């Protein structure tokens, strides 16, 4: 970058001369002067560091990517390609046993980069083979970082552009007191209630990403990314959102991309000097170079913009990944007062203090029954994310939520009017928590209680008869055929896990849905008889203006 002292239009002629001599024109290959020593050392460190965090070095990532069936995709497939925090993990994920709030991998990578940078510096000095500058290498490093950041943020952005990341609250959540949510839940819900705002946030993230694909708009994209993701880092700390590490990752990448232009802006605006930007761009002269550049760029934009958009749209329309996608029984949907409650044929009158009786009940538009009992219950404090395909594992409607809320998934036999219910709560294992947060692997979660493993304690795998299954139908095919994918088929084809969940089998009767009677066996094998009367609740909160999923 050449600059010139210049404060008056009267010396414009002189400037022209200065500027001419300072600029190096089109002729030279890189058009740069030699770099000072400190800049070269910093660059060597930065080079190692950013290559380490921008390219996938994790074997797990390759396993996932190579298992993708590109002929029958799910939105989560390109998402998994785009999502990796990277950094060097061969030295472990903790520094002196401390994971530094999840940042240890990056700190270790930085230490490694400094070490390699030092060796590199010494080596070139000893070999007397020191480059004058790294303009060319810098160009390629920036290219890697640009594409890494662009692809990564687009992966994040689509779940907001087609708002599925933060769903509109279910009826059960709307009926929960504000004080019964975790901070994390409060934040997620607050975005979920304004889907158009979520779309806007998605537009910002995707625009930031797309701008990074082009050299001349890189600075603008980096500023956008830096501002938006900087805010998200802070949000994650404040609300304990668990994605602070991965959002910090983008802040680092965008900060690196901004560095080149900041001295120029300082020179132009603060010093008020004539500023001549000198950027090196490689000349692609050979035909194969031209075509491979165009090919790579087209492929990236084609896959991560157009294909990804289409897959995200399908996900939004038919299979929003945080809420169950099977439609619930229509005549049951709604909020209910629990008018009568009998356990083993003994009536329990309503009292807010009672620890057995249901206080209210809700059938969601999908296959969930929610009710509240005034008795402490273990809570799932994860953020209800990930990409489970089975409705029972889609837990956003119960995670981070207390207040005695119970959420049961049901398979409905609509011929015999029987609901086969299973508790959606399952104590998450450390590994699952880690997988949910992806970059946050502290995983000190409660393990399921494994004291008793008697045969009779194991759940009966045949609790739903063949005849009933025939009426219920195959869950994998319950969504719109346009949303079918190999990923979904594979997950359903896996052998069912032996999961110990609370179960109920309840027969329902209703004439017009205003009164529903449930009778059967509850999770304690007690006989249950419940009369539900429908209530019309007028929520103050405006209805969602952009509904995900298809439940008609």
């Amino acid at each position, binding site marked *: 970058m050449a600059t010139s002292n*210049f404060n008056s239009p009267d010396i414009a002629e002189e400037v022209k001369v200065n500027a001419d001599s300072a600029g190096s024109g089109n002729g030279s290959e890189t058009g740069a002067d030699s770099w000072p020593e400190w800049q070269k050392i910093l660059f060597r460190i930065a080079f190692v560091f950013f290559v380490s965090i921008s390219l996938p070095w994790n074997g797990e990532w390759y396993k996932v990517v190579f298992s993708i069936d590109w002929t029958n995709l799910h939105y989560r497939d390109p998402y998994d390609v785009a999502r990796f925090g990277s950094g060097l993990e061969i030295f472990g994920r903790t520094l002196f046993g401390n994971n530094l709030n999840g940042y240890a991998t990056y700190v270790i990578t930085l230490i490694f980069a400094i070490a390699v940078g030092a060796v590199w510096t010494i080596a070139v000095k000893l070999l007397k083979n020191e480059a004058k500058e790294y303009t060319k290498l810098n160009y390629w490093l920036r290219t890697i970082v640009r594409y890494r950041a662009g692809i990564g943020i687009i992966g994040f952005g689509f779940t907001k552009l087609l708002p599925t990341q933060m769903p509109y609250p279910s009826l059960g959540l709307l009926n929960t007191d504000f004080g019964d949510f975790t901070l994390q839940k409060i934040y997620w819900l*607050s975005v979920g209630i304004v889907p158009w*705002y979520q779309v806007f946030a998605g537009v910002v993230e995707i625009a930031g990403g797309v701008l990074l694909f082009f050299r001349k708009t890189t600075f603008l994209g980096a500023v956008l990314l830096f501002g938006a993701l900087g805010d998200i880092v802070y949000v994650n700390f*404040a609300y304990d959102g668990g994605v602070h590490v991965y959002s910090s990752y983008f802040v680092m990448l965008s900060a690196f991309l901004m560095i080149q232009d900041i001295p120029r802006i300082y020179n132009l605006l603060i010093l008020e000097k*004539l500023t001549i930007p000198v950027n090196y761009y490689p000349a692609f002269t050979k035909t194969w170079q031209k075509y491979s550049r165009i090919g790579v760029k087209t492929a990236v934009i084609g896959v991560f913009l157009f294909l990804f958009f289409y897959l995200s749209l399908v996900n939004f329309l038919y299979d929003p990944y945080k809420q169950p996608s099977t439609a619930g029984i229509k005549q049951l949907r709604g909020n209910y007062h629990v008018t009568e409650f009998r356990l083993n044929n003994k009536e329990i009158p309503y009292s807010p203090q009672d620890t057995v009786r249901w206080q209210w009940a809700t059938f969601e538009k999908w296959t969930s029954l929610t009710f509240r009992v005034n008795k402490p219950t273990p809570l799932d404090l994860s953020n209800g994310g990930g990409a489970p395909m089975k409705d029972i594992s889609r837990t956003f409607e119960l995670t981070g939520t207390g207040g005695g809320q119970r959420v049961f998934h049901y398979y409905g036999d609509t011929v015999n009017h029987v609901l086969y219910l299973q508790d959606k709560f399952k104590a998450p294992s450390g590994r699952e928590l880690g997988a949910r947060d992806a970059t946050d692997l502290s995983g000190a979660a409660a393990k399921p209680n494994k004291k008793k493993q008697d045969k009779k304690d194991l759940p009966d795998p045949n609790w739903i008869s063949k005849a009933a299954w025939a009426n219920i139908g195959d869950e994998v095919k319950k969504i719109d055929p346009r949303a079918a994918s190999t990923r979904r088929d594979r997950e359903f084809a896996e052998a069912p896990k032996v999961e110990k969940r609370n179960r109920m089998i309840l027969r329902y009767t209703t004439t017009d849905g205003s009164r529903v009677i449930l009778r059967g066996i509850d999770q304690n094998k007690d006989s249950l008889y419940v009369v539900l009367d429908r*209530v019309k609740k007028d929520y103050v909160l405006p209805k969602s203006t952009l509904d995900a999923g298809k439940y008609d």
Partner: protein
Amino acid sequence: MATINPSLASDMLARKRWSSSEKIIFRIAFVYFFLLSVPLDWKYYRTVFSINWLNLSYGDIFNLAHYSPQFFAQDSFLNLVIILVIAIAITLFWGFKDNENTDYYTLYYWIRVIVRYRLAVGLIAYGLIKFFPLQSPLPSISNLNTQYGDFSDWKIFSLTLGVVPEYESFLGLIEILGGLLLLHRKTTTIGTLIIIPFTGNVFISNLAYGGGEAVYSFYLILLALFLFAFDAYRLYSLLGLEKPTVPNLFHPVFKEKWQYFGRLGLKTAFIFFFVILFGFKTRSGQKYGSYQYPKAAGLTKAAGLYDVAEFKINGEVRPYSVADPVRWKDVVFENWATLSVRSNRRVILDSTNVEEIHKDDTDRNYEFAGSAGRHYYSYKADTVDHVLTLQNRNKNYPADKFELHYTRPDSVTIVLSGLDADRDSVYVRLEKVNKKYLQTEVKRIGRRGSLKL
């Protein structure tokens, strides 16, 4: 690639003279932003004269800073449009009288000075009430015991910010930083690069959540865009076109001593009043709690959530029931003199959501604005005769009053008995609930822990 435009120098010389279209656009902008920034609206002076200048509070300074012209309508985009029409009309008149010697560079400089300081005040004011987290306070006990679906979207926005005071402070800091950068000519554009996305997000949030500050935040964005326009082309040339770029060449000259000291004095006074004094006043105001909640203290050691263990109306016992239209479900005593009742009785919303700092408790409606599910009563406690006089705080229920005698047989029980506004006799026995809130419990054990609640 450094390519030097051979006509660079002549370009720069040419820019000394403005084209006639540039002049017309500039004149319109000049008048428009002058009308927007200088407080010409007489209604503003009602605020100015109602202030006790010897005993200023941060609320006064905030209300002074919260100016936008409202000549034609209250809080409407219409004002901004009509003022633009007026600006064009004035420009037409000015056009006929244009003097060849008009120094547009100097005019541009001075209108920027006015807009810079106007915008800075607006941002610093909002920044300070966030930095000392007063704008969105922690939720009240009643708010914690209200169903999510019973809040308006705007209320949820504010509650969501309120639960994380440290984040609110951080946002305030960014806003203040943006404001401070405007106080220096050369850092103005960098300030607008912070302000435009920040206030842009505030504007979009106001639209999305039905907030009351959409017009005002848009007005601030207009000012910021005008300031940004000064360097916009230069930044585009440098970063987009990657061409050699000429900086701003105009510098104000203060030749006379009085000019020099006058400038210094005004700047110092501005910083003293709107940054230092305002900052200290806000900080000392913070110890009285948020201005959003009433000040009057509540019944001693009563704050909390209560179960309504017994409820009689005109002597008739009403047992627990989810569907009873009259019976109270639970009651909250706040730390201040507010009592709220959850029942099936409908609430007609008070949905004020324009930011104003009120001195009187009756005007501080934050706790029930945009919130159904509970009725909120302010109360006066006669602690000698043990009488609570309740008045529904919602302006839609002026007749809803209670005159209740209270006894406290033990530390967890409060018995209320007396008459409501219809002269019906009411008897209520309240038992305190040891309610645990998930937000605080999780902080204790961490999100990775396992919790039963």
